[in-house]
């Protein structure tokens, strides 16, 4: 029976041999790299999701006749051109003044960017004025009109006799509401007052609380298009004053500075990274429990006093003391070896040493009791001589 079972167990023990390979397997490489891979995938997913959710990141220029994005007004400008209105897009007050004339209408979609000096210059033009909110500096550009309140932008009924508004019907308007002075007409009223005001003392000035109905996005809705065309196309020439474009030179044009090429989101992303850094700092900086203090023993080598004394000898070139110490130590070691009493005289010690070592007694005397060495080399030599004498006395 045993003979049968033995061959069966043998291969079993063989296959149980330990694996000794240390080279990385596919599994171990994956385990090592998966952290980085996961983070990389997360970064890509977050970027793609953000891009998909928010659409294109290029922000349109609001109420710009040359802008085809949702917030631009290219559609309105094109319609006006088809209807024979000369739409002139200008970016500076100087250009606007050059086109000034009785048959012109000046459209200012954003008075916020105008300086008070520019506003004053525009106020002197003969052209009609169409001011679109947000509006400030009304006292210069639209005398007699004042901002009263803010209301939501939504579809409103004209409720006035102004032909342009009455024909257009309800429109998407709101924003600022105004109080029209004497002779002013107010349309699209809310509880807080009208959002469209026209005064005709002097050049016709029309003030709109909000220009959303003129954008490409809102133009097809409601009576927006009609209202916009009626208002903007009232004169043969429309001077459309948009804020000057921020210089955005194209990459490679040579005029681009590094700051121009950085996308607008980068500083905010950096701010977010700072937040992340603070969080990480708090994570790493939080200690797990208090710092443990301990009363530690002094750590001082006992030999430090001796080393200090040696350094003092060296600093002061104290050859006399050094030589005396070396000689005294040698004599103390030699005396018992030479069979002399501890109170033996120098002469006895010199004589006995010379006898034992076979050296010249005068030389032995000068080594053991001679003058102080005149320099450091002499001191080193003296130490050597004393060693020699001791060695010879030990093993004659």
């Amino acid at each position, binding site marked *: 029976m045993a003979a049968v079972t033995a061959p069966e167990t043998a291969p079993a023990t063989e296959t149980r041999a330990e694996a000794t390979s240390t080279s990385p397997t596919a599994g171990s490489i994956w385990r090592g790299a998966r952290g980085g891979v996961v*983070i990389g995938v*997360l*970064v890509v997913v*977050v*970027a793609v*999701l*953000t891009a998909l959710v*928010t659409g294109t*990141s290029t*922000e349109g220029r609001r109420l710009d006749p040359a802008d085809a994005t949702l917030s631009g007004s290219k559609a309105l400008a094109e319609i006006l051109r088809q209807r024979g209105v000369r739409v002139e897009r200008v970016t500076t007050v100087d250009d606007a003044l050059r086109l000034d004339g009785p048959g012109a209408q000046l459209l200012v979609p954003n008075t916020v960017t105008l300086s008070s000096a520019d506003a004053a210059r525009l106020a002197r033009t003969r052209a009609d004025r169409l001011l679109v909110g947000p509006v400030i500096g009304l006292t210069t550009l639209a005398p007699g009109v004042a901002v009263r309140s803010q209301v939501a932008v939504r579809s409103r009924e004209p409720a006035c006799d102004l032909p342009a508004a009455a024909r257009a019907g309800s429109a998407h308007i709101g924003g600022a509401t105004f109080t029209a002075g004497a002779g002013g007409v107010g349309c699209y009223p809310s509880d807080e007052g009208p959002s469209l005001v026209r005064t005709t003392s002097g050049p016709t000035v029309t003030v709109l609380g909000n220009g959303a109905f003129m954008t490409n996005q809102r133009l097809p809705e409601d009576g927006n298009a009609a209202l916009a065309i009626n208002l903007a196309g009232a004169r043969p020439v429309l001077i459309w004053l948009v804020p000057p474009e921020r210089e955005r030179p194209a990459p490679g044009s040579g005029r681009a500075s590094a700051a121009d090429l950085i*996308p*607008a*989101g980068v*500083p*905010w*992303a*950096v*701010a*977010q*990274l700072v*937040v*992340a*850094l603070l*969080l*990480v700092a*708090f*994570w790493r900086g*939080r200690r*797990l*429990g*208090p710092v*443990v*203090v*301990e009363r530690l*023993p*002094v750590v*001082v*080598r*006992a*030999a430090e*006093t*001796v*080393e200090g*004394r*040696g350094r003092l*000898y*060296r600093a002061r070139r*104290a050859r006399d*003391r*050094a030589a005396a*110490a*070396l000689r*005294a*130590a040698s004599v*103390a070691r030699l005396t018992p070896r030479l069979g002399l009493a501890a109170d033996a005289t120098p002469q006895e010690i010199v004589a006995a040493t010379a006898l034992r070592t076979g050296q010249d007694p005068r030389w032995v005397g000068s080594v053991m009791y001679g003058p102080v060495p005149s320099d*450091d080399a002499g*001191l*080193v030599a003296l*130490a*050597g001589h004393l060693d020699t004498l001791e060695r010879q006395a030990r093993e004659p």
Partner: protein
Amino acid sequence: MALTGRAGLIAALGAVGVLFAPRPLYAVLGLLLLVGALVAVDLLFAGGVRPLRFRRAGERLVRLGEPVAVELVVENPGRRRVRGTLRDAWPPSAGAAPRHQRLDVPAGERRRLVTTLTPTRRGDREAVTVTVRSVGPLGVAARQGSHSVPWSVRVLPPFLSRKHLPAKLSKLRELEGQHPALVRGQGTEFDSLREYVVGDDVRSIDWRATARRADVVVRTWRPERDRRVLIVLDTGRTAAGRVGTSPLSRASGPGGAGWPRLDWSMDAALLLAALASRAGDRVDFLAHDRVVRAWMSGGSRTDSLSALVNVMAPIEAELVEADSASMVAAVLARARRRCLVVLLTDLNAAAMDEGLLPVLPQLAARHLVLVASVADPRVAEMAAGRGTAELVYDAAAAEHLRGERARLTARLRRHGCEVVDATPDDLAPALADAYLALKAAGRL
């Protein structure tokens, strides 16, 4: 409260989103809100740290250089699972490992954690705090709190010189013989009377006792016993100086700053105490600098060594000049019978001139004094320096010190003291030999 790396990771990944967001400011604020909300949720649902209950068990004594395990039982009476990290904080010289441990205690259960201490220094080591960081379910934030769970481990002197004990004990046995001697000599005392058997030395027959009885009776002798040995340890400033190489760090790299004289002296004292208690002598111990630091009166012989080790453990060198007069007074007050006073101190000429030498006659008149001191091997090394001027100046300084020590030794011997001046490794056996020699000479 504490955060984990995930909070930072979420914020960092959010930076990518901010980069592409149309309203970056709102994205930044939104991410802040998100992280804040996650942290709040985690803090709300993390297991509570405050209600945790702790219990300790394990060793309270360990020899220096050996590891000791201390158990910590964590009980979670709360309703939520406590998962996270635990730190059992000990002083650095306790050598606690691991520094942090993973902790996972389901509600109503308990877990046992083991911290291994490998102390690097003698003395009492007190556990400081137990800090638990309980991570919330999202792993973004954690609750953190500390508990005080007292426990102390006394780190005993390593008694490295016990390797010399067998040799010294065999010497002692040689001295006293395994059997009572029949020959009277120095260092023996009367043991008993017994019947004469053929082969006994006839000179040892006690005729007076023989006359009282019908048989011939001999006297037997044995080495004198029940002597007193008082070990006095000087814990003044000179004991703090480090000498030689630390025997515990020899295995791992250079000896560092060496070992204090105090520890070498303790090592020698322990060997002497072990030997003396085996020889039937009573060992007392006194540690003194300006006041009495420790006093142990040798009680029963069986446990005197462990008691001595226990008394020695917390003693540290104080950075004050030892007051020899008060030390002598303390010795005289405690030792009324004549005894062997083993004074473990440093042969420092300046300190001895002022301190011990004036009061030594007082002590030597009533007791036998043995002064034992640790010599610094570094001094011998420096004294052999030759070749350059620097080395020779150092050698001169070393010879100066050795000369002072030799003169001091001679003065002490004139006062009738025994002196043992040996390098750290040799001190313990040299002191044991001196004791055995005194015992053999019957001078105790």
